[in-house]
């Protein structure tokens, strides 16, 4: 008994050393989660922010035809600082339109004759026309700004009229509204996390150890070391368990590192974009019990995937073939992970027996602060059963000479 575990430990130790010395695997395990993840998470925000800033900083040019007819409005437009305003006389109206069509200016505002005077008299409401080019984003932005500024001016006129009649401007605002979020802190912090983390954890648990899995199976075949190993006395099952434990260890290591990378990105994100709601919502308010359950289901998934990939890659002839299967596998796993992350997934008993899927569902529920023992039970029991079956299959395949010496 003791001797058999010594063999398992020996194989595990050797394979881990071998993995750690493989620069490619190590790079993949460290660089991807700790460098690529922050870049992927923060990159779009950096880009979006700089783009928005650019748009805001850029002043669109607007020609106001007949501006002298509306001095108050003109002043408001100028003082806003949002637009570059050029007041032109009525005689230049045609030229202004041509300039707009040619893209030299971004919008034209046409003020009718006697605008200010008609407002003062409270006569028939005069019509202000905004001309813009719908095909240009600068022009669309100019129109949005103009519409906003005109609305502000209208509200100012209305308030003025109410005041003249001795009425409160509040007459126009019989009530106000305010929205408040009722969820517990855990739920709020979990909401966005619950979309991304199942995806992350499931993917890493599925493919985080694939390089090692290929190395200890197809890699050994290709390099001819498998034959040296097989003429050693230990029972095949011990070699299988040793290799399986290596893959599981590496997978869990990779998953942990990727979680660290994720946490790092969020921390950085909160520092870099303090006003961004995406980052401020991630307050990790997760209880130890939930964390333990999260680790448990993830570890079980990692073990299951390790046993399955061991068998799959052992069956392939060489590195290249194994790598092809590895990419198919990550696609196959991505599907349920995406489904769970971005939809409201079904949680009937048969659904909760589906491997990978059930783990993704439980992770999502846990992150939303929802501990469903029936789901957790179904997931742990079924995954445990699949793991036992996969390991039995792995041992059987490792004894099959048609697989080991495939030509």
């Amino acid at each position: 008994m003791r001797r058999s575990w010594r063999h398992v430990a020996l194989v595990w130790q050797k394979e881990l050393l071998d993995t750690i010395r493989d620069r490619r695997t190590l790079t993949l395990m460290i660089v991807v989660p700790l460098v690529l993840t922050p870049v992927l998470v923060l990159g779009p925000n950096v880009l979006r922010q700089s783009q928005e800033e650019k748009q805001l900083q850029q002043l669109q040019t607007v020609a106001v035809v007949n501006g002298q007819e509306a001095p108050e409005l003109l002043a408001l437009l100028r003082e806003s600082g949002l637009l570059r305003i050029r007041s032109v006389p009525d005689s230049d109206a045609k030229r202004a339109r041509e300039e707009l069509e040619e893209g030299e200016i971004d919008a034209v505002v046409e003020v009718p004759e006697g605008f200010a005077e008609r407002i003062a008299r409270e006569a028939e409401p005069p019509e202000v026309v905004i001309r813009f080019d719908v095909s240009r984003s600068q022009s669309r932005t100019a129109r949005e700004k103009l519409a906003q500024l005109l609305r502000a001016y209208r509200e100012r006129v209305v308030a003025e009229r109410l005041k003249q009649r001795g009425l409160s401007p509040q007459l126009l605002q019989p009530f106000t509204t305010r929205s408040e979020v009722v969820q517990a802190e855990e739920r709020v912090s979990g909401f966005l996390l619950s979309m991304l983390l199942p995806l992350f954890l499931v993917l890493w648990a599925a493919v985080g150890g694939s390089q090692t899995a290929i190395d200890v199976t197809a890699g050994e075949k290709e390099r001819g070391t498998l034959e040296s190993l097989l003429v050693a006395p230990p029972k095949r099952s011990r070699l299988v368990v040793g290799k399986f434990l290596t893959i599981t260890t590496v997978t869990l290591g990779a998953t942990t590192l990727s979680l660290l990378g994720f946490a790092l990105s969020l921390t950085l994100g909160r520092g870099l974009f303090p006003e961004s709601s995406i980052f401020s919502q991630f307050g990790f308010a997760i209880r130890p019990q939930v964390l333990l359950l999260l680790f448990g289901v993830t570890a079980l998934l990692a073990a299951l995937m390790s046993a399955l990939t061991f068998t799959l890659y052992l069956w392939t002839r060489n590195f290249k073939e194994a790598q092809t299967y590895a990419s198919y596998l990550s696609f196959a796993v991505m599907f349920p992970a995406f489904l769970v992350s971005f939809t409201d997934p079904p949680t009937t008993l048969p659904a909760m027996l589906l491997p990978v899927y059930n783990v993704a569902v439980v992770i999502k529920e846990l992150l939303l602060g929802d501990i469903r023992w029936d789901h957790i039970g179904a997931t742990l029991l079924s995954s445990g059963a699949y793991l036992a079956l996969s390991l039995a299959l792995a041992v059987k395949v490792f004894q099959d000479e048609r697989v080991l010496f495939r030509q």
Partner: protein
Amino acid sequence: MIRVTNLHKRFGDFVAVEDVSFEVRPGEIFGLLGPNGAGKTTTLRMIATLLKPTRGAITVAGFDALEEPEQVRRHLGVLSEHTGLYDRLTAEENVRYFARLRDLPDDEIEKRMAEIFPRLGIDEYAHKRAGTLSKGMKQKVALAIALLHDPPVLLFDEPTSGLDVMSARSVRAFLEGLRGTDKTVLLSTHLMPEAERLCDRIGIIHEGRVVALGTVDELKQLSGKQELEDVFVALVEGGGEL
């Protein structure tokens, strides 16, 4: 010793080894001589318990290969066709790993390495990663792995193939040193001079069948040829008939 009786191996419909029988006694070097695809590696793999015979019996050091494969492996030292070292482990780490899998205690392993490494000239590169070694150096490390647990029975599959002249010479000299010890040695080769120089007895194998068996002199007498190569060519071209 090794005893092989009426050994058959089929891969699907293809017959790789057909009715092969021979015996190798302690203190003897027996050579399986045959062209590419003759079935040498397949025969050695069956003896090493890596492949199951379709039919026939194998006994190694008194243990039946089908009944007690682990005991057979314990009494075997094998040098396989591909040298089979882990590139990212040093020469020494490779040797130590395989020795530990054979349950040798650590102090015993160090003692044996101190004995064998100088004999094979491994000392100078014992701490280098196997991936950086030349083919000849690797082959010597693989020899050390095969010999470290001092097994009574040794299998060598084409021990000098792919080596340069000097490396091949030194490996051959080492193997020659095993003659006259109590080891049972079975080696495969497709090189006539190697077989002639190293082997006490030779089995010529062609298309899965042993077509002639005996000492080099016996084989020459049987065929009336002066050179082993001529014996070989006559056998192979005659479809196994002399």
